[in-house]
């Protein structure tokens, strides 16, 4: 394509020289202008690809010309010609939008190469912008279609439900003998019909779930949850299914597992899907275990694994099992009761709860599906509690010094909330044990205060008296129903040798 260039220079000689050289040595089409105003006028009326202007031209200088073109016709490229003495202007011109600057005296061949380069670059840029726009349009269209698909599924599932209801009703009426006696074969066939309407219903439910997940319309109502209780509940509800195949169910979930933050119903659905799958794909007499533990590799999470002793999944299928309608062996025999959507939904639900899910497997030995859920914020604060205790203990061990842990709990029969009392107590403790104390820290889970002091049993006794005195003065004196404040303490290494023992001993004194 031929490029049109406007050369602006007030010296007739230069103009003609440039025009001649450019026309002779390249296939540019060259036009000439004498001053800034003429140049602007022509740019306005004609289509130029590039303006090559001298810095010193009458009626507006080159810099102004560059700036005005950049503003009014940004698609037109500008290149400025300067002398050595006006190099500063070159920089300024580039800032104003010039694509390049050439220094006089000009080397015509170099000039042509550089003009060509500027034009090529623009060409590439324009093409890139076109491609980006195309991509954006395609993406918009894709989003629109995806949304249409989800809406379609939602409408279709609704429309299919009503005829299904009618069919199910009729089948049940005949099956139960309400329309007259039926024979054994008829009863058998009608139960099959009933079972299959139920299966169709569950496919519809799954499709609807999935379309809501993909459409981003899933409602998540998160709260602090005790995972152990939920796992126990789901395991007991799936027990009959496991017993049918003589499959043993095991649970390995530590009692002190941190609380998690998520949507109870969705987490129950995730567990039901995974454990149900594990039972389905484990042969008679096998076992299925649910394990859970904190998982810090990916932030503050809890990992839950469902492990089966089933047929396993070949390595190259592991990623794809979470795809919709994906069947490992491509046949239908595994999916007699499945819809091929369970794992896709499960993955969607895990991600909606800010977790991740993955699968590991050994063919012939079994598979493990693991997902993570975030630890609740309250628990995250308790991680600080644990962290502080860890650090203090390590320091005491390393320095061969003593460490005393006080735990303080408040029981109030009166009207004040425990939160408020603990808050007040925390302030007072910071004041009264300040000199000796490393830290006063609150545990959110059960709202107890911990005070860590680098002191031995003797010192601990003094601090204990001080704490009790403080409590007496601020919380007991002059109150009709004073709160009961209990103090437990243990000292390393005199009374306890491990961190766990230290905590247990101090905690033990809070009871009773």
């Amino acid at each position: 394509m031929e490029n049109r260039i406007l050369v602006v220079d007030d010296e007739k000689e230069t103009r003609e020289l440039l025009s001649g050289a450019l026309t002779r040595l390249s296939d540019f089409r060259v036009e000439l202008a004498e001053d800034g105003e003429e140049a602007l006028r022509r740019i306005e009326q004609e289509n130029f690809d590039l303006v090559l202007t001298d810095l010193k031209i009458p009626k507006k200088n080159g810099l102004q010309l560059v700036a005005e073109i950049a503003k009014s016709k940004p698609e037109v490229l500008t290149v400025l010609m300067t002398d050595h003495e006006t190099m500063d202007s070159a920089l300024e011109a580039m800032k104003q939008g010039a694509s390049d600057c050439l220094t006089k005296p000009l080397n015509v061949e170099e000039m042509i190469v550089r003009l060509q380069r500027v034009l090529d670059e623009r060409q590439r840029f324009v093409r890139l912008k076109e491609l980006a726009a195309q991509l954006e349009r395609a993406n918009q269209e894709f989003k629109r279609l995806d949304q249409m698909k989800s809406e379609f599924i939602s409408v279709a599932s609704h429309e299919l439900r009503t005829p299904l209801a009618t069919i199910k009703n009729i089948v049940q009426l005949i099956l139960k003998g309400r329309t007259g006696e039926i024979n054994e074969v008829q009863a058998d066939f009608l139960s099959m019909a009933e079972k299959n309407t139920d299966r169709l219903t569950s496919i519809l439910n799954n499709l609807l779930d999935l379309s809501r997940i993909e459409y981003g319309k899933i409602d998540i109502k998160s709260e602090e949850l005790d995972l152990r209780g939920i796992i126990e509940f789901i395991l007991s509800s799936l027990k009959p299914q496991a017993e049918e195949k003589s499959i043993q169910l095991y649970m390995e979930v530590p009692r002190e597992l941190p609380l998690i933050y998520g949507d109870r119903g969705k987490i129950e659905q995730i567990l039901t899907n995974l454990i149900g799958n594990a039972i389905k794909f484990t042969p008679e007499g096998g076992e299925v275990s649910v394990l859970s533990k904190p998982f810090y590799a990916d932030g503050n999470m809890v990992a839950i694994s469902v492990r089966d002793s089933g047929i396993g999944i070949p390595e190259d299928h592991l990623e794809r099992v979470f795809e919709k309608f994906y069947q490992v062996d491509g046949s239908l025999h595994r999916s007699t009761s499945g819809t091929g959507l369970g794992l896709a939904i499960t993955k969607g639900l895990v991600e909606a709860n800010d977790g991740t899910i993955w699968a590991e497997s050994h063919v012939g030995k079994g598979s493990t599906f693991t997902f993570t859920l975030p630890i609740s914020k309250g628990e995250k604060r308790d991680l600080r509690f644990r962290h502080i205790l860890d650090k203090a203990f390590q320091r005491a061990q390393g320095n061969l010094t003593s460490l005393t842990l006080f735990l303080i709990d408040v029981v109030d029969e009166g009207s004040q909330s425990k939160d408020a009392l603990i808050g007040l107590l925390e302030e007072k403790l910071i004041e009264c044990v300040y000199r000796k104390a490393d830290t006063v820290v609150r545990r959110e889970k059960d709202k107890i205060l911990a005070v860590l002091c680098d002191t031995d049993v003797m010192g601990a006794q003094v601090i204990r008296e001080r704490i009790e005195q403080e409590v007496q003065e601020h919380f007991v004196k002059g109150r009709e129903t004073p709160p009961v404040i209990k103090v437990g303490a243990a000292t390393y290494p005199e009374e306890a040798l491990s961190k766990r023992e230290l905590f247990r001993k101090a905690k033990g004194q809070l009871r009773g």
Partner: protein
Amino acid sequence: MSPKKILVVDDEVDLVKTISFSLEREGYTVLVSLNGEDALNQARRESPDLILLDIMLPKLDGYKVCRLLKFDERYKHIPILMLTAKVQEKDKALGMETGADEYITKPFDTDELMEKIKSYLSQ
């Protein structure tokens, strides 16, 4: 004791037929409406003992029928069981807000439905 009267409201004629069949077998008197407006008129005229109500209905949707009856001192005692293909939680919440006593999604188990009806009528 005269038989209890149940109003069945659904625009799916076949479904109405099968539900009516089961209800009549149980000894109830069955009234049928195929649209919301007629349902409202029949409910006001006949004062049935219980109403089975679909949501997506011609002329007047089930939510409105339910609201109009439940906000009327004369009819608010009539139990309304919504029978619907709408399965989303927000639909259910909306159904409960209008004062429906039960929200049952299609397809449903006939025997369970009969049990539910019986328990509402014996209250």
